[in-house]
């Protein structure tokens, strides 16, 4: 048969999902309404650590509009610690103390915001009124708030583990001590890196409807992982998988915050709906979001780099603490990512990295776009900057000398990645990416000509250039079901959910090319377990890679069915057929054709048996499970101007050169990078979650937690280098998180440069920064 053409794959096709989103027709979870809908509000702990002595709900009982109030005591066997979602990888001598969250706190609360009771009422206003009438006697306990003190053996214990050790992991490659002995220069620094809150503009939310007669539960949730929620609810509620449908409708951004399993609210709302035989809705408000949704937070790295006189990395050592929050359902994903990210795109012959994950009385830490990689990239990039300065080598040149050469792939790193496979980079062209970045930002001319002139005019300008890799597209698998309808339209269903990643278009592009239809003739369903119930979810920059390849395989199978059936219909060989404009044509008789819709009807006959070995219809279900992830890469560069008096920073120019393998839709790829960079800028200079010693968040409003606005994010100039992945047939690498990952070290480098690090300015060893902090650093630095 003739090969499918890449008419749409690789093109900037406009999006299928835009029309409903632009007109207000798109359904988000809070848009769902039923005539019997009741509304839920959660009572949350005001203490970071306290024993619950008594909960008195009697004052709510006679209130108008209050339907029910539940506490942990009402839950019976449903009250149990949540299953561990991601177990720790099989690393030798690894310590892991599993302590997961419960649907409602029963005896002890361990962070401010932990749910203690839920109220069901006729509307949310009344539910919140009732919250004010529940009386809880708390006996406050000592609080483990700050990371480093919480790791001391005599620190207050969040659980029953001395030193609050959630995990201890050491990974070693080569002999660092030998490398250190052979080094000309060894640089050691302490780095503090805090990553913050995802803060999607849509908060979390869930609607659950229990149909008593059908004994069936329908759930609509703003989640990144509908299939996993489905499986979890079936298991924990003792229901058959056929008794539950979970739908992730349009979801207003996730960035990791909607993938934790299982959020207490995601369990409690369906449970209460079943108890009451009703429809319930809970929409997280922004105040709750600051305390009830997973976060990323801080790590403290004591890191060392051993280099030779010519700037070659001989070895790295890193010992770090990771703030895990109160529970650890998401295992070690974040700190293992940090551990792996320290290696970067560089040849590192020896690496000795160990970390302790520490329980603290703060909300649960789980991945947020980048998922720990930011911390690691900051460490290696800053160490290289300091090494370059000390050795008198240009900071770009030291990177050139250490990048993994293009002929060294696949490149094995000798340690284990979060997906339980050896950290291996499948393909890459790192040096060309760096060179292209330098060319676009004009590094040489800026440093040689422009910067001295601007400095002479009194302007504090500086440039920063960094490199990074990102492991993407990890397993285990995703699947897709593809079907041609009698109308000639194609339906693609996959288990992953969508939070803005354009899946309705990119998957349609793959299908349209293979099945000879237009992109807008492909209907994509994501995240509806009635349509497709298998898969893991949208996270870790894996949706396009893993589900995209599954769509490709399912469409290839349907294409074969179409051609075989048409060949039978036309009594010719399928080699002589092509599919275009929704029709199968024979190459030698162009006027002879049949639509794929007509073939779909023929494939589902009312008389005549389905022959052995065949199936009815033009449909196929296929799965794709990569052996291991695929590694994307890139470089970021920026030029900044700092007002030396106020320490306000303006980004004058921003360049990203990125390699995500073969892009499905470059328009979408660019959008993902723009958004990632904006979040990276937020992380570098704006967004800081502040806790006091009592574990209270100090800035839980969007007026105080500073998300960048349109005035704070610069125009981003982009270029692509395409090095196809070797881990999947389409050559795709993930791109969702990439933009966010290396921004902070580029920012730190550029600001240091602007403030005259070479002339004795202060080193920047921490993120996030602020004008206030930069001023303090400058005041304390040697001037």
């Amino acid at each position, binding site marked *: 048969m003739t090969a499918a053409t890449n008419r749409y794959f690789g093109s900037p096709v406009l999006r299928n999902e835009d029309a409903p989103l632009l007109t207000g027709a798109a359904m988000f979870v809070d848009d769902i309404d039923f005539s019997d809908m009741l509304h839920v509000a959660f009572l949350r702990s005001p203490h970071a650590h306290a024993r619950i002595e008594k909960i008195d709900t009697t004052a709510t009982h006679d209130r108008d509009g209050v339907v029910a109030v539940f506490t942990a005591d009402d839950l019976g066997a449903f009250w149990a610690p949540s299953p561990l979602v991601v177990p720790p990888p099989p690393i030798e001598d690894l310590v892991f103390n599993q302590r997961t969250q419960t649907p409602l706190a029963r005896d002890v609360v361990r962070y401010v915001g932990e749910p203690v009771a839920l109220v069901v009422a006729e509307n949310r206003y009344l539910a919140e009124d009732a919250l004010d009438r529940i009386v809880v006697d708390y006996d406050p306990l000592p609080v483990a708030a700050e990371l480093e003190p919480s790791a001391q053996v005599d620190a207050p214990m969040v659980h029953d583990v001395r030193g609050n050790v959630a995990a201890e992991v050491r990974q070693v490659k080569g002999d660092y001590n030998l490398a250190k002995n052979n080094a000309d220069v060894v640089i050691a620094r302490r780095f503090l890196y805090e990553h913050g809150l995802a803060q999607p503009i849509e908060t979390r939310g869930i609607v659950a409807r229990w149909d008593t007669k059908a004994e069936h539960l329908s759930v609509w949730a703003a989640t990144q992982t509908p299939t996993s929620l489905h499986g979890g609810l079936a298991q924990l509620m003792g229901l058959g998988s056929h008794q539950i449908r979970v739908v992730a409708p349009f979801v207003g951004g996730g960035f990791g915050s909607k993938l934790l399993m299982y959020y207490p609210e995601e369990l409690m709302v369906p449970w209460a709906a079943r108890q009451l035989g009703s429809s319930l809705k809970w929409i997280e408000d922004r105040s709750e979001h600051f305390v009830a949704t997973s976060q990323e937070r801080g790590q403290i790295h004591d890191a060392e780099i051993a280099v030779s006189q010519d700037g070659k990395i001989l070895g790295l050592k890193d010992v770090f603490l990771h703030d895990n929050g109160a529970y650890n359902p998401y295992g070690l994903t974040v700190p293992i990512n940090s551990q792996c990210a320290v290696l970067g795109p560089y040849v590192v012959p020896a690496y000795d990295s160990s970390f302790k994950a520490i329980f603290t009385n703060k909300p649960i830490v789980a991945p947020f776009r980048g998922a720990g990689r930011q911390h690691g990239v900051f460490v290696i990039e800053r160490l290289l900057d300091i090494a370059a300065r000390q050795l008198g080598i240009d900071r770009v040149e030291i990177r050139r000398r250490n990048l993994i050469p293009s002929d060294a792939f696949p490149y094995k790193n000798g340690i284990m990645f979060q997906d339980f496979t050896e950290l291996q980079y499948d393909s890459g062209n790192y040096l060309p990416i760096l060179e292209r970045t330098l060319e676009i930002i004009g590094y040489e001319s800026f440093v040689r000509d422009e910067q001295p002139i601007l400095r002479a005019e009194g302007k504090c300008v500086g440039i920063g250039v960094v490199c990074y890799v990102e492991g993407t597209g990890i397993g285990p698998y995703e699947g897709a079901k593809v079907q041609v309808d009698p109308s000639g339209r194609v339906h693609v269903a996959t288990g992953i959910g969508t939070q803005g990643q354009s899946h309705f278009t990119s998957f349609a592009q793959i299908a349209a090319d293979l099945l000879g239809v237009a992109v807008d003739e492909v209907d994509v369903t994501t995240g509806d377990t009635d349509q497709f119930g298998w898969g893991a979810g949208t996270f870790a920059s894996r949706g396009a890679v893993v589900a995209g390849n599954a769509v490709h395989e399912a469409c290839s199978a349907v294409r074969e069915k179409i051609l075989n059936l048409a060949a039978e219909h036309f009594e010719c060989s399928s080699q002589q057929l092509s599919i275009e404009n929704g029709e199968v044509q024979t190459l030698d008789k162009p006027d002879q054709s049949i639509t794929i819709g007509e073939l779909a009807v023929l494939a589902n006959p009312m008389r005549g048996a389905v022959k052995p070995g065949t199936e009815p219809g033009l449909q196929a279900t296929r799965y794709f499970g990569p052996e291991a992830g695929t590694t994307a890469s890139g470089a970021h560069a920026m030029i900044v101007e700092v007002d030396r008096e*106020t320490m306000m920073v303006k980004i004058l120019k921003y360049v990203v050169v990125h390699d995500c393998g073969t892009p499905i839709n470059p328009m979408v790829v660019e959008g993902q990078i723009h958004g990632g960079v904006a979040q990276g800028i937020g992380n570098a200079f704006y967004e800081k979650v502040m806790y006091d010693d009592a574990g209270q968040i100090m800035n839980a409003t969007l*007026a105080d937690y500073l998300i960048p*606005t349109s005035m704070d994010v610069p125009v981003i100039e982009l270029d692509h280098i395409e090095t196809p992945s070797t881990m999947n047939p389409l050559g795709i690498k993930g791109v969702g998180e990439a933009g966010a990952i290396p921004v902070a070290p580029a920012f730190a480098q550029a600001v240091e440069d602007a403030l005259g690090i070479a002339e004795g300015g202060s080193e920047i060893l921490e993120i996030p920064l602020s004008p206030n902090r930069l001023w303090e650093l400058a005041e304390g630095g040697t001037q």
Partner: protein
Amino acid sequence: MKPAPFRYAAPRSIEELLALKAEHGDDAKFLAGGQSLIPTMNFRLAQPAVLLDLNTLPDQNFIVETSSGGVRIGALVRHSDIETSETIARSHPLAHEAIRFVAHPQIRNRGTLCGNLAHADPASEMPAVMLALGGRFHARSAASDRWIDASDFFLSIFTTALEENEMLCEVEMPPLPPGSGTCFLEVSRRPGDFAMMGVATVVSLDEAGRCAEARIAYCSAGETPLLAPGVAASLAGEEPDETALLNAARQAAEEIDPPGNVHLTSAYQKHLVAVLTGRALRTAFARANTSASQ
């Protein structure tokens, strides 16, 4: 984040409004633009039992020039009205310049100047502007009717000289002195955020080009908007050259002692006082020179 229940009235006259306020006293709050009050109620940090809505009052949306060249601004004048008022742009460029720093366009379309002043958030821009301009505030209750000087109005954080049942029903900005120049400057993390530090300055020059008078006010500098009378006194009679400006900046940082907050250290804020005082005075004197030469 839903507000607690309250009873509501939208009176059609100011007399009716003030009578209701007299009846309900502290239980009742005035609702003008609501852009500070409603978020506070949504967080349930404020739970007034009664809300008295000003928005249905007739004739309160006025910006009127007085015979002396001052401007009176009514209770329902929105920030965006000030932003687009040609009268104010001409008569009080300081207010016009500062108003664009108040939150975002959507907030400015709803929030009122009088409501903003009565809320008395020391981080807010317009209270400092009123101090610098020497504004006067018209307070009325069912039983009283009086004017309060801006310098007597702001008592503490969210606390003003308004008595329990008084409403701020208009403000008057007196005419600028002859030969004057003004400047509002602030540094905020993002556009629309409250200032990390903000300064409003009014200066005037005598015929010899020396500083006749200076008024310098700060927002985000303490429990209320603050004047720096010491700096103003030192500048009076001085030639506003670079030395004088540097001295003024240094003196301001001694006179103003910002407390810091969860986002900011006191030392950095103090540093910003010096930086912004110098910059704002430089611009204001330059503008005064321009206006004098016209």
